[in-house]
């Protein structure tokens, strides 16, 4: 605090040469708001090479701890260079402040630790990525164990939580997934129609829309939307519970957090995602139909006739069959990242972001693996 606020003229210094040395005259208010630039001016002072130095502070009319610190570090730097420094004219109150700052600054240590080098950071990030992957696998294993235990004792399954999750992750996702897949169908039909029309193969628009939606786009699109909608919510919820020690509280009252928080989400998503995908299949094909009749004159009747020939049951089922795996990925990654939150609001936000990025990444990777596997088995 400023011991005197009457005049807040900025802090000033002036070096006056004297015989055998120099005198530094300090003036003004040495308080935090008026010492800007003082540091530079002090650094720029060319101290005489020899002789005794005097710092005259009699014209300093206000001082706080920040001002005292600036004075103290100047004196200390000079003394460290072996110079003799005499402080003169300090008011008693400022003297006491300087004394306090000198005592305490002995305890104040060098601030920032050295920033690690590039190699160190790469190594650290690699270890971290591997550890995270290992953690996810361990989490999967733990979830499987708890699932096995729950199946052995179906009473322990939390049906109410499952129903609740079915509603929030499934039913409430209907509008957005429906709209987006409808638009996706429209886009594909629109892009495809122009190409097909050149060959007069308009009717194959049904093959294009039906197969691409059912096999790839609709499962992928739905999983990605659910990852963004529900996976992130899982991470944020569990992360916040972790930070507020609710998870620990659950443990102490003998509830397995995995059983209460993870299994219902996972089971609900395994049920909801295939159903949502069936729905988005329908909406996507419907979007394609609307576009086909508007753009290339393939009516609804002709479209559906052609669709029956184009789509086999297997191409429909390969699309749906992938979705339980996607569901497990989204639920597991979301919950796992939630459990990784530590300590702060900041970390909850970070883990939520990581959960969405990671689950979308893994969904797409697993989709690619499915494609390879299906083509091996000629499905």
């Amino acid at each position, binding site marked *: *605090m*400023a*011991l005197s*606020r*009457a005049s*807040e003229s900025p802090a000033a210094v002036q070096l006056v040469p004297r015989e055998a040395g120099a005198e530094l005259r300090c003036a003004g208010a040495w*308080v*935090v*708001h008026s*010492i*800007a*630039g003082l*540091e*530079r001016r002090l650094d720029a002072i060319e101290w005489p090479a020899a002789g005794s130095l005097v710092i005259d502070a009699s014209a300093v009319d206000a001082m*706080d*701890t*920040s001002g005292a*610190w*600036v004075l103290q*570090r100047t004196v200390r730097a000079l003394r460290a260079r072996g110079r003799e420094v005499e402080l003169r004219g300090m008011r008693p*109150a400022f003297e*006491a*402040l300087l004394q*306090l*700052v000198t005592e*305490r*600054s002995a*305890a*104040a*240590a060098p*601030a*920032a*630790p050295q920033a690690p080098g590039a190699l160190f950071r790469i190594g650290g990030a690699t270890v971290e990525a591997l550890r995270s992957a290992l953690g996810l696998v361990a989490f999967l294993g733990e979830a499987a164990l708890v699932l096995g235990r729950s199946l052995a004792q179906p009473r322990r399954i939390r049906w109410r939580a499952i129903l609740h999750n079915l509603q929030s992750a499934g039913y409430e996702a209907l509008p957005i997934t429906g709209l987006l897949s409808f638009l996706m169908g429209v886009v594909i039909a629109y892009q495809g129609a122009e190409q097909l029309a050149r060959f007069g193969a308009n009717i194959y628009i049904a093959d294009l829309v039906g197969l691409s939606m059912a096999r790839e786009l609709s499962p992928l699109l739905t999983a990605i939307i659910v990852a963004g909608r529900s996976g992130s919510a899982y991470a944020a919820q569990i992360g916040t519970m972790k930070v507020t020690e609710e998870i620990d509280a659950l443990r102490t009252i003998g509830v397995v957090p995995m059983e209460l928080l993870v299994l219902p989400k996972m089971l609900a998503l395994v049920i909801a995602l295939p159903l949502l995908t069936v729905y988005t299949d329908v909406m996507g094909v419907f979007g394609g139909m609307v576009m086909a009749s508007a753009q290339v004159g393939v009516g609804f009747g002709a479209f559906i006739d052609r669709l029956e020939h184009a789509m086999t049951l297997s191409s429909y089922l390969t699309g749906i069959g992938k979705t339980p795996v996607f569901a497990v990925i989204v639920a597991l990654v979301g919950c796992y990242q939630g459990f990784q939150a*530590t*300590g*702060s*609001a*900041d*970390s909850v936000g970070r883990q939520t972001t990581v959960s969405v990025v990671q689950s979308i990444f893994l969904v797409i990777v697993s989709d690619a693996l499915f494609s390879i596997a299906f083509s091996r088995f000629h499905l």
Partner: protein
Amino acid sequence: MSAPIEPMQGSAPMVEIRDLNTRFGAAVVHENVSLAVRPGEIFALVGASGCGKSTLLRETIVLQPPQSGSIRVFGLEVIGLSDRDALPLRRRWGVMFERGALFSSLTVLENVGMVLREHTQLGERLIDEIAALKVALTGLPPDACAKYPSELSGGMRKRAALARALALDPELLFLDEPTAGLDPLSASGIDVLIRHLKESLGLTIMLVTHDLDLLWRTADRVAVMGESRILGIGTMEELSRSEHPLIREYFYGPRGRAAREQAWKRK
């Protein structure tokens, strides 16, 4: 400083509250509350939970408005000030919140330095040095500077919050429950620290507390709140002689008596 601040007379109160009324819906929180905090004293507000102490503090630091009345800080009316108009005042006082309210994404040093970065044009190195000095002033070890709030114990977090409140060398310090949630040893460490800071930096401190030990050890004057009013203001000795039943209950309950005996013994 840009905004003009009218100079204060020597003994004018730092905080002056007059005829303050606060209601939340039908619930009356304050009814004609008046008090004054003198320069250079440690002024404590006490009272049962939910009696409106913290609300009074929040109204004083312009976080929420009362229904009517007047609150003058440094001689200036603060009720109804916008954040923009309150800024020059806020730069002259420091606030420590009950749970510290340290920014969890910043280290302790960055938490303190942030205030300086925001309000001064000092160089980066000097800011770090001053921040480290503030941290040292509150008695934290130097290695606490690089830690995040989540890595600190409750007592250390309070000290770090105090360091942030001291960042701009305020004239006036508001402390909300400075010892709540601390073990007796850490709490008495905070007692000593508050006393020490007041004496060495010449601060005026207004604090809200439940802690009777803290009151006996640090407070110069105490206001007891209850029934939406101020039941009594005075030194601890004066209040402990009060005849008011609620004040007597407060000071002569089993815990109050123990704290008082402790205080006598020390004398």
